[in-house]
């Protein structure tokens, strides 16, 4: 008999790359659970576009996650199992409350990947500490204090710095680092609390380690992931550069950490996945458990994807009772998922921040998360991943060519080394370039020593290259350390083509390497490729009929829309039988089912992080289109905000074939409202075809844009006021309303006849709230207004 399974948990409303990761995880979980014969019901607070690719709208519940609604969902759909999917504090609280109710006693549901104890330890820091203490683990000195004077006593005993947060039982509060009495006083004044405060000795010079364990109900466990943060503890883990696998702690310490987390997993009877955050101080040979989280953490998801481990497929399978060594993946392969991976490459995660220009990026770093996304890079050595990361973050030029901090005095550099902000990496490089001792830089910054040594080596290489133009040994050394043709050309003041010619003579080629650990996973691995320079014959790549290339943008909303658009394109191309390859650092393979070749980086592509639009480059080499290139652009919201005044605008997406046959999407009506000087609300609603709009748009296109294949028109009072040679961030809405959009687009681009029938399936809208902070960063929060696609209303 079919069992009803509730896939529950909100993805963040904040448009970040984490949202994408969460949606991808949901999508994979849904695919697998459905394949296993479960009737999967989604309960989420936001519409998830990824999921909408295939899900039956009758099984999608979009409603606020709270106890009341949870009970209604369980009752309505006769839920037997719940899989809470993300680290949403609210979701956990709701489940915890639910488990205390009489309703739960009457309707007992089984939790997957979660049990009562792990739930408690995840929610309560105090409970975690008590548990760890009872199990003989060392604890960081901490105390619950009622007021300032008690906190002051703690500080006198432990010394500064300390971290402190108000102990609010209802909502999650953030830690603050306190280094002076004045800061402590200021904190208490700014944060009144009836529940007291948690104060803890700061361990901000420790290394932060993350480990992910998978366990089955037969008590089998495997450490499937480990990473190390480059920035010290005290800077939020998501704002730090992270590297997997762990690279700078000894084998002895690693095994101690492994023993500790496996013991905890055993004690907590973890079935599914559990993430552990640990702090390590090798000077005193000690470590602390900072956090236990039994849920998916979106920060580490793309890193695990880079290891090729089909994480979600495994989590769902073991959650349903399978043995770790006999897991069936989406691709149908039965794999041994009890593997502790030996990656033959290094993966690093570089955080990024959403700003309009890089100059605006003056953000301070601390315990509170501020980054809005991350770029994932792979390489076969640490030098290469650092170079790729710096390039993707637009920092290569500032560090190796422009030396942006060169005009500062040594004293000013020292001050900048102490200041925890995004720009500090430039000061660190300048200090190393000037000959500051590494030990000195490390004592100021607390950066990982190995990372600093790597930076110093790269800077030395760069200086040597500038001084010794034409030195071929140096060229090989530099390219093996991740210097690409463009940077070398700039350092030697020749063209990238000349560098390419030189390295070809040296048999130094750009090699594409697969990310899964080749000796560990065979079947079921999620395959992605990365490139590196090696003195090895280059393998001729397959002749793909269609290649899609995209680089990440700092504007996460356009990234989000681009990922959705690209995945839809891939689905259609593959359904039509074309061989497809995808390049770029934003896109990667999701699950073992997909057969598309993803190239996670491309050394030839220039950086586009702070461009005003996110560009997808399509290359066709099919029977109909031989060697043809197109660009699809999604413009960042801020780049066309100036079009609005008090009146709403109509957006119409059009596609036009070579015979000027025109396809018009249902219009989107949008309104921009400034709420405060920093805050805007951008509401977009889908509408029906109106004859006036159709007439105006058709006439405009035929007269002004007769050869343009696609684009967006803005209309005001039925008059066209602007043409955008691409799409806006509302393209997702357009796709949802006009289900044949992708089909028409593809066929027009490829020059194949297409039916232009426009099937409308529903109307809805969304509100994007943009908050521009004083420090130049901005955030975008998405809220879907009406969801007629989501028929499973409560």
């Amino acid at each position: 008999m079919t069992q009803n399974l509730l896939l529950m948990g909100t993805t963040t409303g904040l448009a970040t790359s984490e949202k994408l990761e969460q949606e991808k995880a949901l999508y994979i979980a849904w695919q697998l659970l459905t394949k296993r014969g479960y009737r999967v019901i989604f309960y989420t607070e936001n519409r998830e576009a990824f999921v909408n690719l295939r899900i039956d709208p009758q099984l999608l519940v979009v409603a606020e996650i709270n106890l009341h609604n949870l009970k209604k969902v369980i009752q309505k759909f006769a839920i037997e199992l719940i899989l809470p999917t993300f680290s949403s504090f609210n979701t956990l609280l709701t489940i915890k409350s639910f488990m205390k109710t009489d309703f739960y006693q009457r309707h007992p549901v089984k939790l997957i990947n979660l049990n009562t104890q792990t739930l408690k330890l995840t929610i309560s820091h105090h409970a975690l500490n008590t548990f760890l203490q009872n199990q003989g683990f060392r604890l960081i000195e901490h105390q619950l204090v009622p007021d300032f004077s008690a906190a002051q006593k703690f500080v006198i005993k432990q010394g500064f710095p300390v971290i402190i947060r108000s102990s609010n039982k209802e909502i999650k509060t953030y830690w603050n680092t306190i280094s002076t009495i004045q800061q402590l006083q200021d904190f208490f004044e700014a944060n009144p609390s009836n529940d007291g405060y948690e104060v803890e000795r700061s361990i901000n010079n420790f290394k932060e380690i993350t480990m992910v364990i998978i366990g089955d109900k037969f008590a089998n466990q495997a450490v499937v992931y480990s990473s190390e943060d480059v920035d010290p503890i005290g800077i939020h883990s998501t704002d730090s550069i992270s590297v997997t696998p762990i690279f700078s702690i000894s084998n002895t310490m690693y095994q101690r950490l492994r023993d500790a987390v496996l013991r905890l997993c055993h004690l907590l009877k973890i079935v599914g996945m559990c993430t552990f955050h640990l702090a390590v101080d090798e000077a005193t040979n000690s470590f602390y458990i900072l956090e236990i989280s039994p849920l998916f953490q979106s920060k580490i998801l793309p890193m695990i994807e880079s290891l090729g481990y089909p994480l979600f497929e495994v989590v769902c399978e073991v959650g349903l009772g399978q043995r770790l060594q006999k897991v069936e993946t989406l691709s149908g392969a039965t794999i041994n998922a009890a593997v502790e991976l030996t990656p033959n490459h290094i993966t690093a995660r570089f955080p990024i921040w959403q700003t309009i220009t890089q100059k605006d990026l003056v953000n301070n770093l601390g315990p509170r998360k501020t980054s809005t996304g991350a770029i994932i890079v792979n390489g076969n050595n640490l030098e290469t991943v650092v170079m790729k990361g710096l390039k993707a973050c637009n920092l290569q030029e500032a560090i190796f060519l422009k030396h942006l901090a060169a005009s500062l005095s040594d004293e000013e550099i020292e001050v900048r080394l102490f200041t925890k902000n995004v720009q500090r990496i430039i000061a660190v490089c300048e200090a190393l370039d000037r000959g500051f001792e590494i030990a000195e830089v490390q004592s100021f910054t607390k950066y990982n020593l190995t990372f600093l040594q790597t930076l110093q080596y790269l800077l030395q290489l760069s200086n040597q290259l500038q001084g010794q133009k034409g030195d071929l040994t140096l060229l090989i050394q530099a390219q093996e350390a991740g210097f690409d043709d463009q940077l070398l050309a700039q350092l030697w003041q020749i063209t990238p083509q000349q560098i390419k010619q030189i390295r070809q003579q040296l048999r130094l080629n750009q090699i594409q390497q697969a990310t899964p650990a080749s000796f560990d996973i065979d079947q079921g691995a999620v395959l992605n490729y990365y490139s590196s320079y090696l003195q090895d014959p280059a393998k001729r790549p397959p002749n793909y009929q269609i290649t899609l290339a995209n680089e990440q943008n700092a504007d996460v909303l356009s990234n989000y829309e681009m990922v959705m658009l690209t995945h839809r394109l891939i689905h259609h191309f593959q359904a039509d039988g074309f061989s497809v390859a995808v390049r770029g650092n934003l896109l990667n393979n999701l699950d073992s089912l997909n057969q598309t070749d993803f190239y996670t980086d491309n050394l030839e592509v220039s950086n586009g992080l702070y461009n005003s639009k996110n560009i997808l480059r399509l290359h066709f080499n099919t029977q109909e289109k031989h060697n043809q290139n197109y660009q699809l652009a999604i413009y960042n919201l801020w780049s066309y905000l100036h079009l609005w005044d008090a009146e709403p605008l109509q957006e119409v997406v059009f596609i036009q074939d070579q015979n000027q046959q025109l396809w018009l999407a249902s219009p989107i009506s949008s309104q921009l409202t400034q709420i405060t000087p920093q805050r805007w609300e951008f509401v977009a609603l889908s509408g029906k075809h109106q004859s006036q709009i159709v007439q105006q748009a058709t006439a405009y296109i035929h007269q002004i844009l007769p050869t343009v294949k696609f684009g967006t028109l803005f209309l005001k009072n039925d008059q066209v006021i602007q043409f955008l040679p691409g799409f806006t961030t509302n393209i997702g809405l357009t796709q949802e309303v006009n289900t044949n959009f992708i089909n028409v687009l593809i066929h027009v681009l490829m020059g194949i006849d297409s039916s232009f029938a426009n099937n409308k399936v529903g109307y809805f809208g969304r509100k994007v709230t943009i908050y521009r902070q004083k420090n130049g960063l901005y955030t975008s929060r998405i809220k879907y207004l009406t969801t007629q696609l989501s028929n499973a209303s409560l």
Partner: protein
Amino acid sequence: MNKYLILEDGTTFQGDAIGVPSISTGELVISNNLSGLENTITDQTYNDQIIVFVRPFVDTGGMNRDDYEAIAPSCKGVIFNSVPASQFSVQDPHSLNNFLKKRHIPGITNINIQRLAQHIKTHGAMKASIMDTADEHARDQIRALVIPRDRVKTVSTKQPYPNPNVGFKIAVIDLGLKYSILRQLSIRKCDSIVLPYNATATDILDLDPDAVVFTSGPGNPQEIPETLKTCQQLEGQLPILGIGLGHLVVALANGAEIYHMAYGHHGSNLSTVEIATENIEFSNHNHNYAIEPQSMSQTNFFITHRCLADNVIEGLRHRSDPTMTVQFQPEAAPGTHDALYIFDEFIEMITSFKQGKNL
């Protein structure tokens, strides 16, 4: 300086030199070790072999003396995916480059490790040379090479020596001993005496030990008939633990047969399953030979462990005698502590045997 790795079938890989600038030839093995470079390079089981490290080497801390498994490593070369610049430091006495030079080990870094690993996986383990050129002469040399057959003799101690403590007296037959075996026995207070591979049963029994350990080591156990004979003579008289090569020695001595694996098990993160409990554990493996499953019917052993990846027999226990063996290396070093319990079970076995004997 460029350096070339040339395989027996002529396939060539180019990279950069590290270690002593000499040429070398040996059997190529792929190691999955995630950490513990010192343990691996100094492990005598790699005698006459060229070790390929799949994982990029990142740690800049240098070679840690505390993790050596032998004073004089005898591998023929090391191949790295990548090595950080700091490990080439002339000043740092603990840098990898200095370590390899001091011990006369040649190496290559920055080669296409994925292509190499895939090649070995497809075509099986083969001989290889570390060369300065990639000409036909170099290829002829490797084709002419005969892999030595006396590896255990090379690495085993020439003289007995004690590792004193206050507990059970253990005779450790050194077939390529890793110090970590002694460390684990010491932790359990065992009073060990290390004996050469060709110690006779009489030599051993004269010492009146409480148990015997046949250690891990390099090569084919059929090349040490004297050890097989000793094992046959001791069995049933004393508790025996066979580790790695010692596991194969015990199996052969009891009528089992062995075969050469396609590319062996070399790594600290291979998973094995304990048959009785279906529990999974990760341990360090290092062997090119394994027991032929069909031949198990000719023995009086039952299988206790198998490798999850390829179902290879990884552990045995005698049905009546106090004899247990594991193909993997429970002492870890490098690798996880999952299988340390094997030593505890061995101590329990000795205790039970002594109690039975006293009764």
